């Protein structure tokens, strides 16, 4: 290859030099024969009469120069062809014999670019375009080239290794599908680098729409990936600079997309009627025009994905709306919440009498209400009517009250829940510890004897310190008076929820394998405002201790690693992805570790009946319009067709004949000019 490049450089230098000399000589022109005439004015008059002929003469001069250069170029080509053919051995044909082909299979690759009219004509997604590009790249490569195919989304899957079976490689490329996930470019590049270890002439070709990856930077990889952009970013392939490339991309993006997206789903039970709630949707319209849509809300107790919702759900609402371009919020009040799982479908409003769109654009969103199971609460208290009443106020608590002297923690260990049916314990001024593995609330206005000296504050001003915590939701101590509060001693990892200014904690949440709350306040020693707040505080505490503190469970971002908090540690959880069979979940302490690219509702179920259900959501980076042409564009290495020597010499002879023909033409022109 280096020899060939050197030959090419030499030939190019030689050809350029000859052309430059020819042009220079032509411009210098040989000195014409000078003839003295008695009266130039008469000649001036003659030439003025035939100005057009003078222009014709000038034109002939330049034509003559062009012909001369053409002759030189033909002679140069005739000389170069045999040389190139001789040098073009198989081992120098390939610049990058080992290529890792990374195809972006993230969610944005499912987008169809352009407006409806164009899209119906083409009907291809970005991934289909990427498949075509990758197939062309593979087809154009010599048989000696080796490829590795990596499908990149939230994960990096090697679909074809170094091999010579091109048919299998093409099949693997053709079978690629877009995933409901963001792009983890770092993982894909790490896999590619690993595949290229030990190969010197190697390249990474990244076929992508230019979407923003969740993590990773192409420039950091070695060799630096070359991009084949599809979709709107494809316009940047021929741009010489990054700025011009981005400008071309923006121009292509200006046409918008036929795309609707569910960006966020919020579901809030009505405080007055927990059986009904308000659905808040943030929808995105990428069409750059007002789009009439139909929003469908379906509810189910068990469905996890679109297929299951269509089979086993109840349609709760069908509501038309007109979405302006960009993101907008739609509020659907008074939604029946009798089932915990919801699927929201947004699609263009059907037009009566119109043909069905061959490539519809729509999106799904999912929401899950927190599980509202009955909780067994053990209240260990001498007599506290306020506290007992607050616990009973919850519509799903089953309170079992015992006297402190009858309380033995080991009788209520978490492991024995099937026997005693207790989910959490409330200790009202009881010095004894919580049962093993059992979450609980400790009200400790009177400290244990081990704590000396105990600290108290009288008529304090209590300030919330973690207003965003689930325990403090809806709670304010403003204008609430307490006679006396106890300042709690802090332990490592304690979260102070409320304190007496400046630094006397009175409410603490603790989570060291099991959730625990301590209060240093006595609600019997507060005024009316505090007593009204008690049921709310207790309700929040019970929900948090039971792991059901969120009314709507936050979505999990597809393609990213997840750590789902489990209310009880040490159980053998089963994870079920939508549409997949259950399998053993990985756990680290109370966190369940997972990652998936399947959109829908993921569930984790414990043997004791606990179940966690979490909806998924596409990463915000997977917006079809969020594309950038960053990095280097891929241009196929210039490959000279292999020619045998005879063919090259034949071509060379043809070129020489052509040069002679042009020379004869030039000579005829000269003779014609002389004889005119």
């Amino acid at each position, binding site marked *: 290859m280096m020899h060939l490049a050197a030959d090419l450089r030499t030939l190019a230098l030689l050809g350029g030099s000859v052309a430059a000399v020819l042009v220079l000589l032509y411009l210098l022109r040989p000195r014409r024969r000078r003839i003295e005439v008695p009266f*130039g004015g008469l000649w001036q008059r003659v030439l003025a009469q035939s100005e057009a002929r003078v222009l014709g003469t000038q034109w002939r001069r330049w034509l003559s120069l062009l012909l001369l250069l053409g002759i030189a170029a033909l002679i140069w080509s005739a000389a170069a062809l045999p040389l190139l053919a001789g040098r073009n051995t198989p081992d120098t044909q390939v610049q990058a014999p080992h290529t890792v082909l990374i195809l972006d299979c993230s969610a944005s690759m499912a987008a169809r670019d352009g407006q409806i009219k164009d899209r119906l004509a083409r009907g291809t997604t970005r991934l289909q375009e990427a498949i075509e590009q990758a197939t062309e790249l593979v087809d154009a490569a010599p048989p000696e080239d080796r490829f590795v195919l990596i499908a990149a989304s939230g994960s990096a899957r090697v679909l074809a290794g170094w091999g010579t079976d091109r048919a299998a490689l093409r099949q693997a490329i053709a079978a690629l599908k877009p995933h409901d996930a963001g792009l983890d470019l770092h993982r894909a590049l790490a896999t590619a680098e690993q595949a290229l270890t030990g190969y010197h002439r190697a390249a990474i070709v990244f076929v992508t729409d230019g979407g923003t990856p969740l993590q990773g930077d192409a420039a950091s990889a070695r060799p630096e990936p070359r991009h084949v952009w599809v979709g709107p970013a494809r316009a940047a392939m021929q741009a010489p600079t990054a700025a011009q490339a981005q400008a071309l991309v923006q121009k292509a993006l200006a046409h918008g997309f036929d795309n609707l997206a569910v960006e966020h789903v919020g579901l809030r039970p009505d405080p007055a009627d927990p059986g009904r709630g308000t659905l808040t949707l943030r929808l995105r319209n990428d069409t750059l025009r007002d789009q009439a849509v139909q929003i469908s809300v379906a509810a189910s107790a068990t469905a996890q994905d679109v297929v299951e919702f269509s089979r086993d759900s109840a349609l709760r609402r069908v509501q038309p709306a007109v979405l302006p371009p960009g993101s907008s919020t739609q509020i659907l009040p008074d939604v029946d919440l009798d089932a915990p799982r919801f699927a929201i479908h947004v699609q263009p409003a059907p037009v009566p009498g119109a043909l069905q769109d061959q490539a519809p654009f729509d999106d799904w969103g999912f929401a899950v209400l927190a599980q509202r199971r009955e909780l067994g609460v053990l209240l260990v208290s001498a007599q506290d009517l306020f506290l007992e009443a607050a616990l009973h106020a919850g519509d799903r608590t089953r309170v079992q009250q015992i006297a402190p002297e009858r309380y033995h923690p080991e009788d209520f260990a978490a492991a024995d829940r099937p026997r005693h049916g207790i989910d959490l314990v409330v200790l009202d001024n009881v010095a004894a510890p919580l049962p093993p593995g059992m979450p609980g609330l400790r009200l400790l206005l009177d400290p244990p004897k081990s704590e000396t000296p105990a600290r108290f504050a009288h008529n304090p001003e209590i300030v919330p310190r973690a207003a965003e915590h689930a325990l403090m939701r809806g709670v304010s101590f403003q204008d609430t008076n307490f006679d006396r509060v106890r300042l709690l001693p802090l332990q490592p990892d304690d979260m102070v929820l409320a304190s007496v200014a400046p630094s006397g904690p009175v409410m603490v949440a603790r989570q060291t394998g099991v959730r625990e709350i301590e209060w240093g306040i006595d609600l019997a020693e507060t005024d009316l405002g505090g007593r009204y707040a008690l049921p709310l505080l207790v309700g929040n505490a019970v929900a948090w201790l039971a792991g059901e503190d969120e009314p709507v469970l936050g979505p999990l971002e597809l393609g990213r690693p997840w750590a789902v908090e489990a209310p009880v540690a040490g159980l053998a959880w089963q994870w079920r992805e939508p549409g997949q069979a259950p399998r053993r979940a990985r756990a680290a302490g109370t966190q369940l570790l997972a990652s998936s690219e399947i959109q829908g509702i993921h569930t984790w179920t414990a043997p004791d009946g606990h179940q966690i259900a979490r909806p998924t959501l596409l990463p915000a980076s997977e917006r079809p319009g969020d594309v950038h042409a960053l990095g280097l564009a891929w241009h196929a290495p210039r490959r000279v067709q292999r020619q045998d020597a005879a063919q090259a010499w034949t071509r060379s002879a043809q070129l020489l004949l052509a040069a002679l023909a042009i020379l004869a033409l030039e000579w005829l022109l000269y003779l014609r000019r002389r004889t005119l």
Partner: protein
Amino acid sequence: MAEAKTGSSALRTDLFDAGFLGRVEQLALLARRMATSGQRAQRRSRKVGSGIEFADHRDFAPGDEPRSIDWSLFARTRRLQLRLYEEEEDLRVYFLVDRSLSMDMAPAGQPTLLDRALQVTAALSYIALSNLDRVAVVPFAQGVAAPMSPVRGRNQFFHILRLLSAIAPAGRTSIVASLAAFVRHQPRPGLCVILSDFYDPTGLGNALRDLSLRGFEPMVLHLCDRTLLDTTVAGDFALVDCETGEERELCLTPALMARYREAFAQFSEEIHRAARQVGARCLTVDLSQSFDDVVMKVFRTGGFLG
């Protein structure tokens, strides 16, 4: 059209050798015979004055001499008319010889237009001197040099010859400026023989008319070299104007030469037209013609000493 030729600044004594002088003598005799056969040898001036030859009548005006009144005519017509007589005086013949560089163009070894002009001037001068007329030679190019006083008598011929021999080609042709300067230096009108190729970029203009209005009687001898028109040279050339030095590149083709000949014919016709407009005679003299043929042609055309 010829290769550049070095202008001759030496005396042109070879132009006026013994053969030339003998030929001039014969021409003078021939001219005198032609004059006695049909025309008078002496040429009268156009000046109307106190001679004895009746010229014309004109109306009487206060201040005129009463003795000039034609009383016979008055008796017949009852109109007061004066009799006018031509005033006899010596004719002055001015030879305006173009000595610009364009007159010095000729193939090597061939006579130039200036040579021919000088020979014709010498011959005509001899004839005029023989006719007792006054002769002055006025070389010109961009202007006129110091004026020469007209001379009279055959013995002045060699003075004329020395003067002609000393004329060296130089400068550009400027007919208008030269004739205007000539008029300023020579207040007395006479016959004005202009020998030139008339290669003046500014043209002839009204020079002949101005000359005529001043009382001069112009006679134009347009000298040319037709061998330059018949050239068969072709190809790319750089034409250099011998007077201005301006250079112009062209591809000389037969077609272009044909157009050049047309342009020259048109140019020559323009000179003739300008002469006709003032009643002057105009002869085109080709270099191939011998000087005596030219002289005879001048006499046959008339207007010279006629």
